[in-house]
């Protein structure tokens, strides 16, 4: 059998990659995808825990996270569209009017 820690490490690595992507990506859309990736990494960990503890509550959490992810994607992409319409740019570093 595969130990639970193996799944967790996969989840952690995916999460780390997602984080790295958020940190280095200047493209808003890619950045969004990285966030989705991080959410999925968390989901993987939840499923793994659920299996390890042999109770199903983890599935419910995953279900809720999925819903949130869907909602977030919808609103986020709508924002991307609005921003792009205004600025003709998807470079996240250009949107810094809220500084100091």
């Amino acid at each position: 059998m595969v130990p639970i820690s193996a799944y967790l490490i996969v989840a952690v690595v995916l999460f780390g990659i997602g984080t790295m992507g958020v940190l280095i990506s200047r493209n808003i859309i890619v950045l969004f995808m990285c966030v989705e990736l991080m959410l999925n990494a968390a989901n993987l960990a939840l499923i793994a825990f659920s299996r390890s503890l042999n109770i199903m509550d983890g599935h419910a959490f995953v279900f809720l996270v999925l819903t949130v992810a869907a909602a977030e994607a919808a609103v986020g992409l709508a924002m991307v569209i609005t921003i792009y319409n205004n600025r003709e740019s998807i470079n996240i570093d250009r949107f810094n009017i809220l500084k100091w």
Partner: protein
Amino acid sequence: MTLDMFIFVFSAIVAVFGATMMISQRNPVAAVLYLIVSLVAQAVLYVQLGSVFMGAVLIIVYAGAILVLFVFVIMMLNLRGKEDLGDNSPPISRATKYIISMLMVAEFVFIVHGSVFSGPGGGMLEAETVAGFGSVEGIAKLLFTRYLYPFELTSILLLSAVVGAVVMAKRREIHEQSDSGSVSIDNDSNEGVK
């Protein structure tokens, strides 16, 4: 190496590979495709863990709906990976960012190894699962009993997300119609660039 192990290693490598490729793509469409690859690999891991339904949902909802939405937006904005993404000299260097994210992963790994799951039993998964683990029926029971309120709340969340998305996407028109500029986005767009 058992079959189990092989499947796990293979899917894990594919998932990590897809993720890595995703963040290194300049072309967003390619990035979406790599993410789909990663997600499918993750779905395999789900199935391996016994949650067949969630694996299916992952593919259907994520790959099938959310990422299609991404692609749709990318197409709509007509992005080809040639947009101005010039470096605006961020205050923290790229190397530092790599280092801190890796450091984070290392710390997580250390915690996973060092604490909870290395106890008695070696953190191995039990072979036996409760009856109906990961089945539609089990999940449905949970969602409609113990997690009824959160479940109902998600519907409100989705509703407001839909409303928000529609309002935001339509904003341009509202803005153009109103001459008083009460919903002004353009006003500060000029100085924002400086």
